[in-house]
């Protein structure tokens, strides 16, 4: 079913984001109508990606540059495909949400992800990169809690810094090469601008030690929003790394370090959504390592793992989100015994947990083993061993600890109110879970879309691989059993690299605030002693003049000024979120004007 036109998957989402605010409230309140409207863009995206032929589509001339919006090849299609599928599932899972903001933010965010994946040049990547950053920040604020507001600001600040690295790299590259070509960079001939671009990408890929924004922000995102968050930001970064920086040794090492670092922190964490966040760092580590090693097999492994990961991580966040929605907390020390109260949530959560652990029959088994085997075959024994260590930690934390203390939990039982879940949440989880199993049982469903040609196709389903995986996971389970009293989670905040980020923030604030506060102090003093007296004197004089002559003339304009002032005051809500939204709208407006008249 090939076609010569390419309906950009982002288009539907952008239109939805524009439409949602104008849907009449009476129609919007109707869940079926709302859901039907929201599901159109994912369906269009799925159709578009499955029907498009490889090629270059949608060139746009802007500021004397040619922006390419549709680079369609094997690599972009496989990422686009899984993005479309998870946006479809996320849409179903979040259909009960009435808040229009959720739909607008999620749509902008998803559109940003698609935009980056199909972008043919770095300038287009940058535009959509920033759209993602804004969309995801607002998605965190959709949780509408005090801590989500703070976390959202930190997240935005951090991604702005990352975006600036990317921008600096872009501009230097433009100066040096005269263009924004987005092609693979040979690590041997890398320039400063390549390193800057790489740093920008690594912020979004949550490469340790640039990762701490992730476990800070994701656990605080809204229940429905987190499903999108865990799929798009890091995996878009994996895509751009794969496109631009395959074979960079530093990524191979950083990726393996991420894989281990994430599981170590997850091991001691209490908040279930933060455990999962650390496991994003860890799982993305496998992908980054695969890209860094850079053989056909490890790159295929990285892509396959990204695909599988988006599905099972989405499902994990859906499961823990369901717990949060239903009982109001996701902290393990407050949970227990939920298996009998939310049995289907437990079932779908376990499907995802076994998938991420790489258990045979589930999709992690066919993707994770490919990356590890690829590393080992390339004689990167220590990297492969590091990834095996991470696999053990993954099963202990996500496969056993989290479900054990949430759903079973010895004699402790959650006794508070258990709110029933909307049916659409179950439907979303079921679709995702069935896909995880289908890919695990029938790997070709995923393998056929992988971008690289390999000499010897990887076969996961061999007797020795199944038994080895079974032994690794089974005996990790035994380790949990033996240490079950030690690993019991407690309320605590574990310091991570964000301690340093906050320190940098505090010092910066001091550097800027201290001199301006001093100047302000001195000025206030001068004003009080000199200015005020002079003003009072002048005031007396003008008041006489005013009373005698001006009153009648000026009153009219005073009203006008007052009204203008009121309008100004309305825009200045002193709410930084509003300013950010306004800036985004203004930015889009300016973009459109420049494009139209430029």
């Amino acid at each position, binding site marked *: 079913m090939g076609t010569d036109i390419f309906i950009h998957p982002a288009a539907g989402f952008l239109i939805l984001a524009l439409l949602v605010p104008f849907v009449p409230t009476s129609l919007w309140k109707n869940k079926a109508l709302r859901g039907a409207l929201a599901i159109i863009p994912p369906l269009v995206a799925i159709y578009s990606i499955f029907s498009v032929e490889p090629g270059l589509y949608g060139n746009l001339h802007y500021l004397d540059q040619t922006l390419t919006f549709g680079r369609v090849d094997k690599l972009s299609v496989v990422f686009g495909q899984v993005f479309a599928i998870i946006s479809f599932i996320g849409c179903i899972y979040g259909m009960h949400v009435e808040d229009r903001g959720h739909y607008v933010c999620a749509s902008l965010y998803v559109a940003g992800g698609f935009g980056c994946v199909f972008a043919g040049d770095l300038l287009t990547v940058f535009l959509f990169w920033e759209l993602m950053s804004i969309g995801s920040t607002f998605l965190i604020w959709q949780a509408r809690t*005090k*801590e989500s507001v*703070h*976390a959202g600001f930190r997240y935005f600040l951090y991604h702005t810094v990352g975006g600036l690295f990317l921008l600096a790299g872009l501009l230097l590259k433009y100066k040096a090469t005269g263009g924004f070509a987005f092609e693979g960079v040979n690590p041997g001939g890398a320039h400063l601008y390549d390193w800057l671009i790489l740093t920008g990408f690594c912020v979004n890929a949550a490469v340790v030690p640039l990762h701490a924004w992730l476990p800070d922000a994701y656990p605080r995102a809204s229940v429905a929003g987190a499903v999108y968050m865990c799929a798009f930001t890091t995996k878009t970064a994996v895509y751009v790394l794969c496109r631009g920086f395959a074979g960079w040794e530093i990524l191979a090492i950083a990726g393996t370090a991420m894989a281990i670092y994430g*599981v*170590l922190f997850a*091991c*001691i964490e209490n908040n279930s959504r933060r455990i999962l966040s650390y496991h994003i760092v860890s799982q993305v580590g496998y992908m980054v390592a695969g890209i860094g090693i850079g053989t056909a097999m490890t790159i295929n492994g990285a892509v396959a793992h990204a695909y599988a990961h988006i599905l099972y991580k989405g499902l994990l966040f859906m499961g823990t989100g369901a717990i949060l929605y239903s009982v109001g907390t996701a902290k393990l020390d407050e949970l227990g015994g939920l*298996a*009998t*109260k*939310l*049995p*289907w949530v*437990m*079932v779908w959560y376990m499907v995802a947990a076994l998938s991420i652990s790489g258990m045979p029959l589930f999709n992690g088994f066919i993707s994770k083993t490919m990356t590890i085997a690829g590393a*080992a*075959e390339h004689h990167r*024994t220590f990297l*492969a*061993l590091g990834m*095996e*260590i991470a696999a*053990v*930690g993954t099963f*202990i934390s996500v496969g056993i600890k989290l479900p054990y203390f949430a759903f*079973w939990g010895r004699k402790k039982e959650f006794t508070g109110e258990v709110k029933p879940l909307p049916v659409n949440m179950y439907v979303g989880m079921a679709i995702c879970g069935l896909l995880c199993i289908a890919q695990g049982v029938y790997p070709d469903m995923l393998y056929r879309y992988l971008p690289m040609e390999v000499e010897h196709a990887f076969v996961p389903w*061999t*007797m*020795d691989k199944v*038994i*080895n*995986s*079974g*032994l*690794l*996971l*089974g*005996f*990790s*389970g*035994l*380790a*949990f*059993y*033996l*240490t079950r009293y*030690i*690993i019991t989670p407690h*309320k*605590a*905040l*574990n*310091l*991570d690299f964000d301690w340093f980020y*906050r320190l940098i923030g505090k010092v910066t604030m001091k550097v800027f605030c201290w001199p301006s506060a001093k100047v302000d102090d001195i000025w206030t003093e001068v004003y009080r002693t000199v200015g005020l007296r002079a003003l009072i004197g002048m005031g007396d004089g003008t008041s006489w003049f005013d009373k005698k002559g001006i009153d009648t003339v000026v009153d009219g304009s005073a009203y006008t000024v007052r009204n203008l002032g009121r309008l100004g005051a309305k825009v200045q809500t002193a709410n930084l979120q509003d300013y950010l939204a306004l800036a985004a709208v203004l930015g889009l407006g300016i973009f459109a004007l420049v494009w139209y008249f430029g």
Partner: protein
Amino acid sequence: MSQKGLGDILAKWRDNWKTWRTIFFVTLGVLLLLNVPFVTHHPHFGLDKYPGFFAGFGLVVGLAMVIIMKKIVQPFIARKEDYYGD
């Protein structure tokens, strides 16, 4: 299956946890035995040419990870939940 139906089954399973524990141990034993004829085809780590390598690896790494992180590392980096005031 309904929520309650499945919930009841799971409640029963929970009461029979000892049986499940036995099944778990037996499965581990069977896997170990099966590892003797079906040992790794292309060993990469040296020791993985011997049966039981991945069992030992999983157990040792798992034990070390939990004990080191919970007993040694966490006491240094754990703070009160409201440490940052947010």
